[in-house]
């Protein structure tokens, strides 16, 4: 007799967030990305539908990155010096689902680039690419509150996913995103209570839950991955059981985390027994990504083209019913 597996019944589905707007929707994208909508735990298709497969966004910086290892920068090549060329490469050559532009050059401790240059990069990338765009500030609250509203306005109607809001600083960016028709990233420091609270605060400003994506903050393999995984798992279980204030898709910045790991960055001369640095880095990013897919990640923000290719193939396999 065949063994009948126990199936959970869930009462709530994750909200569906749409990123990008087509021409007849007021934007200029030729395709949109829908994420979320899960009716059950990841890849357990017998328990509930997964209407939208996890997507991969590739990270592009507005300035040439100064702390990325050579194994990563050389994979992208000379385009890394030009954010528009870099973005086009992500779309055309690496088949990214979305571009994730990080305005690293805006940081006061970096180049503190003027706002006009930043809005121009946003507009130029939108013009040169056809896939949806995620826009991230420099991470310094005061500077982000100054530049992100301007970038938001410059991309009005494009339905960006824009971030990041945190509990101590969410009002300015939420107001801008509301006015310009964008969705928003709510970031919490690996803390489910703060994740829920921030979602309530943002939705109290009349932002619908179909326009919020949770960044739970993750750690790379060996750097708190299990803890981040358990927080995501707990949030997703609560969401499926009816907690709408945790029922949003997850975005995970796995590239950022994985390439900070010593195992990804350290040279072969330093650790000759660790194997080839390039393979190590790619493996570290890909493994970090595939782990968070199992925790419910909807959007993976990644860096190395080879890791992107591996993870995409893995998603293809996972999505086979």
């Amino acid at each position, binding site marked *: 007799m065949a063994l009948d597996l126990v199936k959970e019944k869930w009462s709530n589905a994750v909200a569906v967030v749409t990123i990008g707007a087509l021409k007849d929707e007021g934007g200029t994208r030729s395709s949109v990305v829908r994420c979320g909508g899960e009716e059950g735990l990841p890849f357990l298709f017998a328990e509930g539908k997964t209407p939208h497969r996890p997507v991969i966004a590739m990270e592009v910086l507005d300035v040439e990155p100064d702390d990325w290892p050579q194994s990563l920068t050389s994979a992208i090549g000379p385009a890394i010096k030009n954010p528009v060329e870099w973005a086009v490469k992500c779309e055309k050559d690496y088949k990214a689902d979305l571009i994730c532009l990080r305005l690293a050059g805006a940081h006061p401790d970096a180049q503190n680039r003027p706002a006009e240059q930043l809005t121009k990069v946003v507009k130029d990338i939108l013009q040169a690419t056809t896939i949806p765009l995620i826009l991230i500030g420099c991470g310094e609250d005061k500077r982000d509150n100054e530049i992100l509203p301007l970038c938001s306005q410059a991309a009005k109607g494009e339905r960006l996913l824009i971030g990041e809001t945190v509990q101590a600083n969410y009002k300015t960016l939420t107001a801008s995103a509301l006015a310009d028709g964008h969705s928003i990233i709510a970031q919490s420091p690996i803390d*489910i*209570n*703060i994740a*829920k*609270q921030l979602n*309530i*605060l943002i939705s109290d400003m009349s932002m619908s839950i179909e326009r919020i994506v949770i960044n739970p903050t993750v750690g790379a393999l060996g750097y708190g991955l299990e803890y981040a995984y358990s927080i995501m798992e*707990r*949030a997703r279980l*609560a969401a499926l059981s*009816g*907690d*709408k*204030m*945790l029922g949003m898709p997850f975005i995970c910045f796995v590239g950022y985390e994985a390439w900070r790991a010593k195992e990804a960055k350290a040279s072969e001369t330093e650790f000759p027994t660790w194997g080839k640095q390039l393979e190590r880095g790619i493996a570290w990013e890909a493994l970090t990504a595939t782990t968070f897919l199992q925790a419910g990640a909807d959007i993976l923000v990644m860096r190395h083209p080879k890791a992107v290719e591996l993870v995409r193939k893995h998603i293809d396999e996972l999505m086979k019913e």
Partner: protein
Amino acid sequence: MFIIGELINGMYKDIGKAIQTKDKSIIQNKALEQIKAGADALDVNCGPASKDPINDIQWLVNTIQEVTDKPLSIDSSRTQVIESGLKVLKNKAIINSTTADQEKLDILIPLAMRYNARLIGLTISKKGIPQNKDQRLELAAMIVASAQEKGFPVEDLFLDPIVMPVNVAQSQMKDILESLREFKIISDPAPKTVVGLSNVSQGTCQRGLINKTFMIMAVGYGLDGAILDPLDKDLMDGAITSDLILNKHIYCDSYLDAYRKK
């Protein structure tokens, strides 16, 4: 916790009058107010003054389901009134209630099955109100056995241990609480438990405090649902916080608001 709002009952003056004059807005406002305060379902009772409960219950059900799709608990001791209400009910149904008398079980369990309704079973019989835990358990087992025999899903059964006023039956309070826990071990899957809360404070001068304290203690004993006044904010805050303590929802600074918005 599963909260059934108790305020649409003809024994309350405003509701009784609204039923008499067929004033929909009073009923609908009372329904929406309770839902906004966090009620998961609404109890509907024509009250003792209704001269034509068979028609009045239909009018009430229709009036309420114009404004909400929350489950309605059709509350009457007469099976004809319950069936009349179920006939027009489109929302999910709860039958409130059957006793542990075989002749009532034989009518109401099949009725619940026909209308896909959950059923509240009072551990009381023609012989009267049980006086201790063992009598309650015996009546509860009889209701569960009858449900199982007829093929009614036990997890859709809510057992009510019959809460007595604390100033009348003080010595029974501990037995009532312990019954809640023991009802759960009658069968697997276990039946659910519910109490008509306000009875505990009947005739006392600290109604709110006694209601709230009893409810929180009962949640500790495994109570699943209560029929209560959801507009008593302090009481509802206590219910929500009890669930929080038992890890049934996730803490955040605005957890009280978050629960009510669910």
